[in-house]
C-alpha cells in the first residue's frame, strides 16, 4: 500500500507550497488529478499582492495598509488577525518567490514591478506580464523537482479515510490503471482549489469541480461562508475566459452601448478599479437596463493604451482575444460579461490551516481561513496560496512531531477503498437512466440563474428545491459502457456528488443570510446588517443533512464602516 507521512492533495500553488514547506525528514508526496503544471493556478494572469512599495511615488505603502484594504474589501467579514498575518507575510513571500526563480516583471532600477488592482489604495500587485500564475507554478514545480518531491499525477482523491476521529489516508481513483486504491498518510493536506464549474458561466478550468471541499464536508468537516461567490467583472463573451483586472489596472475603460464609462454612476472615485463585486454588479445592471449589447455584454476598451503597452503588459490577453475571438484589443474593444470566478468560502480552517478533523489540513482556494471575507481583492488569492500553503506544510509537519508512529489499521483503509469500488460498480451495472452530464448541466443552470450576482428569497428557495430534486435524479443516472482507464466520465460522476453538496451549502447559506455583504447581494435585503450578520456561516453534515451554525468575526483594530469607493 502506498504510504506517506504527509499527503498533499493538489499540485496547484497551494499544494506545491505546502509540499515544499514540509519537513524534509518526513516522506511527503503530492497526489493530483492532473499533472501539477496543468493545475488551474497556471491560468492566473494579473498578479500577486504585497506591500513592497516599489512604485516610485508610493514607497510609503505598508503591510498594515494592505491589511486594511483587504479587510475593507472583504466588507468586514475577514478575520482581521488572519488578514494581518497574510499581509505581513506577503512581503517576505514575494522575495522568496523571486529567489526561487519567478521571472517577475521589473521597474527601472531592477526592483519588482507593481501595478494597481481593484480595491487597493496603492500599486501593490507584483506580476510577470499577464502570466503570473504560469510563472509561479512553474518555478515552484521546478523547485519541487530539485527537492525530489514525489508526485502521483492523474489520480483523483474520492474520499477521506477517518479512523478513531483521525484522518489516516484517502481513497484514490488512479486514471492510468483504472484502479481504486487506498493511500495511507499520517497527515493529509487538501489544496484542491475552487468549485467554479458548479456554475454555467465561469472563468475556471474545466477540472474545477471543487470535489476536495465536498469530500471534506462528507467527512464531517464544516464548510465556512459558502454563500460568498466571486463573480469577475470581465470575462470574454461568450467563452468566459478571463481578462485580468490588470487590464483595467493598466488603464482600460468599461463602456456601455452609449460609449459611456458607466462606472462613474456606481463608484465615482475608484471607477473601473472599484472592488470586483461592485464592478460586476454595475456591469450586470447596465446590461439589464438595456445599456449592453445583445443583452449579454458591455465593452472593455484598451485601445487608448496603444499596441506597444498592450503587447508588453498584456500579451496573453491579446493572444487569447485574437485566437478565441478573432479580435485584436489594440484595434477593437473586447466584449465582456461577469462570470463566476472565485470561491471565498471553503473548508473551515484556522490560521494554522488545521480543520476540526485531526490530521487533516487545508489551504488555498479550497480552504476558508478567512482572509477574503465576503469579497476577495484581486491579487490576494495567489498570495493566500503561497502564504497559507506554506503554513499548512509546516503545521502538518509539526503535528506529526508529537505523534507516535502508530500505523492505522490496514483494514479500515482497504474497506473504504472497497466501498468506493462497489459504488462505481453499481453505477456501471445500471443499464438505463439519464446521462450524468445533462443532469449536471441542469445543476449549473440553476446556480447561474438563481444563485448568481443578485439573489432573492424566493429564487434561493426554488434553487434549493431543484438541487434536492437533482440529487434524487443523480441516484438514478447511468454510466454503462465506460472503460475504467482514463475515464473522465467517471471522474465527473464521482465529483458530481460533491457538487451537489457544495451547491446545497452555497444556496442554503445564501438563503439564511438576510443581508447584503460583499459578493452576496440580496435584492430583498439590500443593506449590510452588522448587528445581526457580522458572523461566519458554518455548514456541517449531520445525519445526512446540512446543519447551519455561526461564528463571530474576529476583529482587531479595524472598525467596520461603510464601504465607499
Amino acid at each position, binding site marked *: 500500500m502506498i504510504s506517506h507521512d504527509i499527503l498533499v492533495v493538489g499540485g496547484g500553488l497551494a499544494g506545491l507550497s505546502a509540499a515544499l514547506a514540509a519537513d524534509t525528514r518526513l516522506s511527503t508526496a503530492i497526489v493530483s488529478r492532473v499533472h501539477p503544471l496543468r493545475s488551474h493556478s497556471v491560468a492566473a494572469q494579473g498578479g500577486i499582492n504585497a506591500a513592497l512599495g516599489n512604485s516610485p511615488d508610493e514607497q510609503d505603502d505598508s503591510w498594515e495598509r494592505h491589511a486594511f484594504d483587504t479587510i475593507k474589501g472583504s466588507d468586514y467579514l475577514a478575520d482581521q488577525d488572519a488578514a494581518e498575518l497574510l499581509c505581513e507575510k506577503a512581503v517576505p513571500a514575494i522575495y522568496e518567490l523571486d529567489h526561487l526563480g519567478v521571472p517577475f516583471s521589473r521597474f527601472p532600477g531592477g526592483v519588482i514591478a507593481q501595478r494597481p488592482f481593484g480595491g487597493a489604495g496603492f500599486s501593490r500587485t507584483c506580476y510577470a506580464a499577464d502570466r503570473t500564475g504560469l510563472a509561479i507554478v512553474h518555478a515552484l514545480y*521546478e523547485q519541487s523537482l530539485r527537492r525530489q518531491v514525489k508526485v502521483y499525477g492523474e489520480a483523483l482523491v474520492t474520499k477521506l479515510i477517518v479512523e478513531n476521529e483521525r484522518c489516516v489516508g484517502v481513497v484514490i481513483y488512479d486514471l492510468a490503471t483504472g484502479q481504486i486504491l487506498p493511500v495511507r498518510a499520517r497527515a493529509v493536506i487538501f489544496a484542491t482549489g475552487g468549485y467554479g464549474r458548479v456554475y454555467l458561466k465561469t472563468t475556471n478550468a474545466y477540472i474545477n469541480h471543487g470535489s476536495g471541499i465536498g469530500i471534506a464536508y462528507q467527512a464531517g468537516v464544516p464548510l465556512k461562508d459558502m454563500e460568498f461567490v466571486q463573480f469577475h467583472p470581465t470575462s470574454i463573451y461568450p467563452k468566459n475566459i478571463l481578462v485580468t483586472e490588470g487590464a483595467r489596472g493598466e488603464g482600460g475603460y468599461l463602456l456601455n452601448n452609449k460609449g459611456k464609462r458607466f462606472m462613474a454612476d456606481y463608484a465615482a472615485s475608484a471607477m473601473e478599479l472599484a472592488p470586483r463585486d461592485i464592478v460586476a454588479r454595475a456591469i450586470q445592471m447596465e446590461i439589464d437596463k438595456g445599456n449592453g449589447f445583445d443583452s449579454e455584454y458591455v465593452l472593455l476598451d484598451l485601445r487608448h493604451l496603444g499596441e506597444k503597452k498592450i503587447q508588453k503588459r498584456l500579451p496573453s490577453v491579446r493572444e487569447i482575444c485574437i485566437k478565441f475571438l478573432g479580435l485584436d484589443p489594440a484595434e477593437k474593444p473586447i466584449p465582456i460579461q461577469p462570470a463566476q470566478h472565485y470561491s471565498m468560502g471553503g473548508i473551515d480552517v484556522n490560521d494554522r490551516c488545521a480543520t476540526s478533523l485531526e490530521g487533516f489540513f487545508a489551504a488555498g482556494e479550497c480552504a476558508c481561513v478567512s482572509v477574503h471575507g465576503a469579497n476577495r481583492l484581486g491579487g490576494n488569492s495567489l498570495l493566500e496560496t503561497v502564504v497559507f500553503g506554506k503554513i499548512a506544510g509546516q503545521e502538518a509537519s509539526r503535528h506529526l512531531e508529537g505523534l507516535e508512529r502508530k500505523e492505522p489499521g490496514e483494514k479500515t483503509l482497504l474497506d473504504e477503498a472497497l466501498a468506493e469500488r462497489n459504488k462505481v460498480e453499481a453505477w456501471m451495472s445500471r443499464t438505463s437512466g439519464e446521462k450524468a452530464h445533462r443532469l449536471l448541466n441542469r445543476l449549473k443552470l440553476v446556480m447561474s440563474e438563481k444563485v448568481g450576482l443578485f439573489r432573492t428569497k424566493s429564487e434561493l428557495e426554488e434553487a434549493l428545491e431543484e438541487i434536492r430534486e437533482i440529487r434524487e435524479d443523480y441516484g438514478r443516472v447511468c454510466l454503462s459502457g465506460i472503460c475504467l482507464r*482514463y475515464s473522465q466520465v467517471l471522474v465527473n460522476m464521482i465529483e458530481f456528488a460533491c457538487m451537489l453538496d457544495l451547491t446545497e451549502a452555497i444556496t442554503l447559506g445564501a438563503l439564511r443570510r438576510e443581508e447584503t455583504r460583499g459578493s452576496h447581494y440580496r435584492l430583498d435585503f439590500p443593506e449590510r446588517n452588522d448587528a445581526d450578520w457580522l458572523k461566519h456561516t458554518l455548514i456541517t453534515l449531520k445525519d445526512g443533512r446540512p446543519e447551519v451554525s455561526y461564528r463571530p468575526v474576529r476583529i482587531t483594530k479595524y472598525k467596520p464602516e461603510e464601504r465607499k469607493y
Partner: protein
Amino acid sequence: MKCTFRILRFDPVEDECPYFEDFSYEASEKKSLLEALMDVRNEQDTTLSFRYSCREAVCGSCAMVINGKFDLACRTIVDSLGSSLIVIEPLPNLEIQKDLIVDMEPFWQALHKVEPYLFPAEEIPEKGHRVEDRVMEKIDQFANCIMCGCCYSACPVVSRDERYLGPAALAKLYRFVRDPRDRRGFPRWSKVSTETGVWGCDTVFRCNEVCPRTVRPADGIESLRRRVVLGKIKQLFKRER
C-alpha cells in the same frame, strides 16, 4: 457546420493496433475542438479519452495533431479549420496510453536531465534581487513555455534517437543559464555539450514551427551552442594563463 471527426483510437489493453473511427458532429459557430470532443464523448462514446484542463491555452494538457498540424485542441476553433473532415491524432513520438492520451514520461525525464530549476544563492538579498527588465525580457520568450510537448513530439531528432533531450528541455535550460539569479555555473550546465544535448539538434526548426506559445525553442538551443563554445574558449585561456 456539419463535420466528421476522424479520431485515432487505441486502447493498448484491448486493441491490437490503432484504428480510425469517424464521428459526425454539428459544430456551432466558434466551437473549440476541445468543446466538440467533450460533446462527442458525452453524447456518442463515453470511452473516448483525451486530456484537458484550463481551456485557455495555458495549461498544456490538450496538445494533439489536428489535420496534420500540432496544436492545442482548446484554442482550435472548429469552423476556422476550413474543412469538414477533421483528422485528430495523438502526439507522435510518444506511446499511446489511450486514444489521444500519450505517455509524457520520456518528455518529463528529458526535462529532469537538464536540472530545470533555479539554483538560488545561499541567501535572499534584503529587498529582493535587482534585475533590469531588459535582462528579464531575454528569458520572457522561454518562460512562456507551457510544457505541452508539441515540440518534443514533432522533433525529427527525438524520433530517431530517444536519448536526445529535445527542444523544450534545452530551451528551459537556456532560460536558467540566462537568468542572473541562477548560480549553476558553466561546468555544471555545459554537460549538455553532447550529441544527445545541444549538438543533437538538426536545425530544421520543427519546434519553432509547432510551438503554440511562440517560445521558439531552437533559439535557445542555438544560444546555448554559442555559450558552450564561448565558455570553452574562456576555460582554455584561463588554463593558459
